[in-house]
């Protein structure tokens, strides 16, 4: 019975659960980077801050090889660099924004302004990684929400924008 409840809770994962996997320290309000490689490096730095992971190159190599499969900039103005790595012990999310936008090889050819980086461990209970990715990609389909997320003055406001309408 308890197992079923836990399983149902995992199924019902929402944006609030996803935001638990990031933090203010892993939120870059304004990226300095001007290109794809720079964005990944800057976000990897935020990932390493306060994390037991020390090897940035391992993370970057994994992200680049994932990008080589096909760009993760799938939404209009939004990218979701992601992947599994041996170096991660649990799912970590880094969020970044660029007002100017960055060429991230997006599907529509336009600049990317919002970035959600998901770094997953080799195994994750309840398939949290793909569920989180699904929640974020769905959420970011709303153009009004994307605009508000980009304009939110700080991390708290950003989270509020994303959780709006959650009841």
């Amino acid at each position, binding site marked *: 019975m308890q197992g079923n409840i836990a399983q149902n809770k995992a199924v019902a994962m929402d944006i609030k659960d996803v935001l638990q996997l990031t933090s203010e320290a892993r939120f870059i309000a304004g990226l300095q980077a001007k290109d794809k490689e720079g964005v990944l490096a800057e976000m990897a730095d935020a990932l390493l801050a306060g994390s037991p992971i020390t090897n940035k190159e391992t993370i970057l190599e994994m992200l680049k*090889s994932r990008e080589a499969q096909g760009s993760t900039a799938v939404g209009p103005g939004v990218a979701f660099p992601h992947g*599994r790595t041996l170096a991660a012990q649990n799912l970590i999310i880094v969020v970044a924004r660029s007002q100017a936008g960055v060429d991230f090889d997006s599907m529509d050819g336009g600049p990317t302004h919002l970035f959600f980086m998901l770094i997953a461990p080799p195994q994750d209970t309840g*398939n949290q990684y*793909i569920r989180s990715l699904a929640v974020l990609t769905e959420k970011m389909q709303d153009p009004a929400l994307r605009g508000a997320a980009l304009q939110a003055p700080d991390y708290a406001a950003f989270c509020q924008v994303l959780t709006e309408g959650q009841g």
Partner: protein
Amino acid sequence: MNRQLALLVSIQNLELQLRDAQDEVKAKALEAMGFPMSVEKIQRDIAGLLEQIEPRHRSYYLRLKTRFENPVVPVWDGHCTGCFANVPTAFTSVTNVNRVMSCESCGRILFQP
């Protein structure tokens, strides 16, 4: 990190991608979100990286792969995360930075994450 070790870690990370790509449910979910994964491309990438590994490391890695799903593992809190045996402190010594080291207990290739 030693270049050979970095390549071995990259191969193992690609193996994780491959596992997701070969899992029908996960692959379909990722594809629906706009992240299609090509099993063939990942396998080609793995093969390409394997070619760059020195023969002695490559044969050791391939032998380990027949025994373990995770032949390359990180060291957390001084333990091999494959078998949880203690890893000698020499592992983190600067003199060993450029070496490919393996667990004395299970033989898995170790790296500092």
